């Protein structure tokens, strides 16, 4: 078995990746890039799940990663279809120009 590092190191990397993703959602206004930052956060969580599964010697964490992947695929399909429709009706995908629903 190949062992690169203890699971705790992976958890630290996962925290850093999640923070980068959260920062991306906050500082970018392009909806597609914001979407990619969300994917980044989902992947950071996947890494934490797999690292903890390895730490506990159980397969359950890896099963959860499956579900996360399925939800991410569904979310990407619907979200990108919404963006396509938005671009057709407004000719923009900048979050600052689509504020009808903002309070």
């Amino acid at each position: 078995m190949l062992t690169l590092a203890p699971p705790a190191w992976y958890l630290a990397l996962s925290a850093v990746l999640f923070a980068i993703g959260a920062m991306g959602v906050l500082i970018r206004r392009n909806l597609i890039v914001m979407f990619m930052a969300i994917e980044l956060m989902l992947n950071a969580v996947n890494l934490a799940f797999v690292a903890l599964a390895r730490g506990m010697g159980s397969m359950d964490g890896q099963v959860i990663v499956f579900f996360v992947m399925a939800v991410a695929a569904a979310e990407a399909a619907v979200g990108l279809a919404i963006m396509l429709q938005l671009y057709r009706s407004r000719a923009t995908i900048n979050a600052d120009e689509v504020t009808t629903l903002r309070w």
Partner: protein
Amino acid sequence: MIAPLFVLLALLTVAASLVVVLHRNPVYSALGLVTTLFLLAVLFVGLDAHLVAALQIIVYAGAIVVLFLFVIMLLNLQVEPRTLAPAPLVVTGAVLGGALGVATLGVLGRDPLPLAAVVGPGYGGTEPLAERLFTAYIVPFELTSVLLLVAIIGAVVLGKKRLS
């Protein structure tokens, strides 16, 4: 101990994810995302999650990122003149993101961290994963199929030329 390899992979992953977040051209962001996902697959192999690593490449890098690239090209996005949100928002976002990272790392440092458990030779393969998936997690597994069906229908309806 081959920790230097992990450090190298981790630094590459962080660099690629920074490209996703900071690059002005969305196509480069998508390529950074592919790089990040591939590097994460390598890290999954390092955690003995072989099947998850393969699926990471097939589903994420293969399907989801291609979907992103399709939409970027359909919308014919150019390099943005103004990449970031207004300056106060950027400062707030960077500070909040950094604080989130520091807080998470702080929590990690406070508790005793898990060491790698001793696992059998089959760990991370198809068989033990399928065994869990089709016994303990059978209900969420079936619900996932409903979710995917709903997502397909939603995407097809939204993708129509005109919404009536």
